[in-house]
């Protein structure tokens, strides 16, 4: 009964993976597939000594750390908020699913419009509030553009943490908190000594999952900035896309793909380890 699924996985997933690794050892150009020569590790050497690669690497790390951190903090506090007993709770629990449901591409065009330098609503709002005197070109400078893309990403993805952590919070018995309150523990004290330790398994697993997702980021970069300005938002995925399909260097693109895959596999390894260590039941 497991054979059909295994065969399909071998065909659709493992064959392409092997194919990528093989291509990475060749000098291959798109549209000239017959001219490919074996070049050994030279694609890898070229990439690892290329400044553009290391710049993309650093930008990806920055994007991943900052966006996942912000998403986690917002997600944690909104989860705690939604675990309180007040009337807006049901409404908000439904609301947090909305940004999550918006397709990533649509989220990208939406925020590109909000950040527009001529007619964007962010400029309009800040101007009317008197916080800026001239419209700002939010996506015009490399570092600022990167941070604006992070804002767009956080707005869509922080609710993943809200939903997952809320699910975990609901399994914590109420009397744990009552006991802590009797002992005179304040909000922060309860957060660090009761909530966070008990949420540990859910936190570890959701952090690793989101980290691997953020590391792979492509769609929102392609839509909002195309890696620009001045390569300021060129993350690794976009660099692979550019190398393979714009510069049409398949061999180099494949070598890059393999490097990224290895990094993700390391993250997956951490994930599997944490699943085992936290003894999380794979349970729905």
């Amino acid at each position, binding site marked *: *009964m*497991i054979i*059909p*699924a295994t065969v*399909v*996985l071998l065909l*659709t*997933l493992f*064959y392409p*993976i092997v194919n990528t690794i093989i*291509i990475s050892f060749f000098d291959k150009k798109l549209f000239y*597939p017959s001219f490919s020569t074996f070049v050994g590790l030279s694609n890898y050497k070229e990439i690892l000594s290329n400044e553009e690669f290391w710049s993309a690497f650093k930008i990806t790390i920055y994007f991943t750390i900052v966006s996942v951190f912000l998403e986690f903090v917002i997600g944690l506090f*909104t989860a705690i*908020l939604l675990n309180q007993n*007040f009337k807006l709770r049901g409404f908000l629990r*439904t609301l*947090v699913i*909305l*940004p*999550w*449901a*918006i*397709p*990533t*591409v649509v989220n990208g*065009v*939406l925020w590109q*419009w*909000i950040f527009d330098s001529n*007619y964007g*609503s962010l400029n*309009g709002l800040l*101007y009317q509030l008197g916080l800026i005197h001239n419209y700002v070109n939010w996506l015009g400078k490399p570092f600022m553009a990167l941070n604006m893309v992070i804002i767009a990403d956080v707005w869509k993805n922080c609710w993943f943490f809200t*939903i997952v952590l809320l699910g*975990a919070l609901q399994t914590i018995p109420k009397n744990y908190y009552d006991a802590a309150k009797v002992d005179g523990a304040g909000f922060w004290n309860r957060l660090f000594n009761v909530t966070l330790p008990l949420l540990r*398994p*859910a936190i570890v*697993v959701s952090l690793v*999952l989101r980290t*691997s997702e953020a*590391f*792979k980021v*492509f769609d929102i970069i*392609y839509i909002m900035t195309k890696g620009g300005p001045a390569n300021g938002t060129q993350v*690794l*995925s976009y660099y692979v896309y550019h190398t393979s399909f714009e510069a049409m260097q*398949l061999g180099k693109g*494949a070598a890059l*793909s393999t490097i*990224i895959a290895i990094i*993700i*596999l390391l*993250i*997956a390894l951490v*994930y*599997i380890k944490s699943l085992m260590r936290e003894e999380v*039941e*794979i*349970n*729905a």
Partner: protein
Amino acid sequence: MHKRKKIIGLYIAGILVAIFILMPIYWMFVSSISPKIELLSKPPHWFPKNPTLQNFKKLIWGGTGTSGEIPDFKRALLNSTIVALITTTISLLLSIPAGYVLSRKFQKFKQIYLNIIVTARMFPEIALVLSMYLIVSRLKIINTWWALIFVYTSFILPYSIWIMYGYFLTIPKELDEAAYIDGAGIWKSFLKVDLPLALPGFSTVAIFSFLMCWDEFLYALILTFNMKAKTITVVVSEFTTRHMIDYGLMMAGGLVATIPPMLIALLLQKYIISGLTVGAVKG
């Protein structure tokens, strides 16, 4: 007094969260129904004075936008729907028996198999897209639904097996054993006993794989090049690549592309939440 303060604090925080979520969505909606003059005004019109359905009409009946000929939006919706439905069906048919066997028999290789599945689920699409492009070209299915169905299965299937396995684990083995004693084989006990009980898992897999296909962009961008197979995400992205950007039309298109997943998310909330928390919350 203290309690009242807390309640007020909760309401303020709740309202802030609601505003944070709703503002961009509201702006997408307002932009989609604003006439061009109002859209391009400084400062922006937060409430359009002359709302219009012009952009939606253009999407449905075609015509020319500021950025030239409008792509056939209906065809893109059809492409996305068909690709998502067929991929979902294939993944369900394959993952249900696979998940079942993993949860019941196969104990020796189970852990290795599951680790491979989890890794496959996290594998970056960008690392495969080049290879997929070459394979799909060689199979002569580039720019067709089948190209997308082929590649989408590669990331939907591992996810589906993982969730189905989790659901079958929650069904007590004793039920199977009772069926075995009554003389039923593995297929019969699977069909009569376990499958009906795993229905919630079935729904979760169906919903998630549909949503993941609907959302997919990278493969569709590379593997399709005209309206024969272009999906909704590619068409929405193309409003941005021309010289003049027609944001009103873009927001209308974005809104239409968002309606199916949003409706699914709202109506089937229960499954979404259980799908998201799989593997993250202790059972």
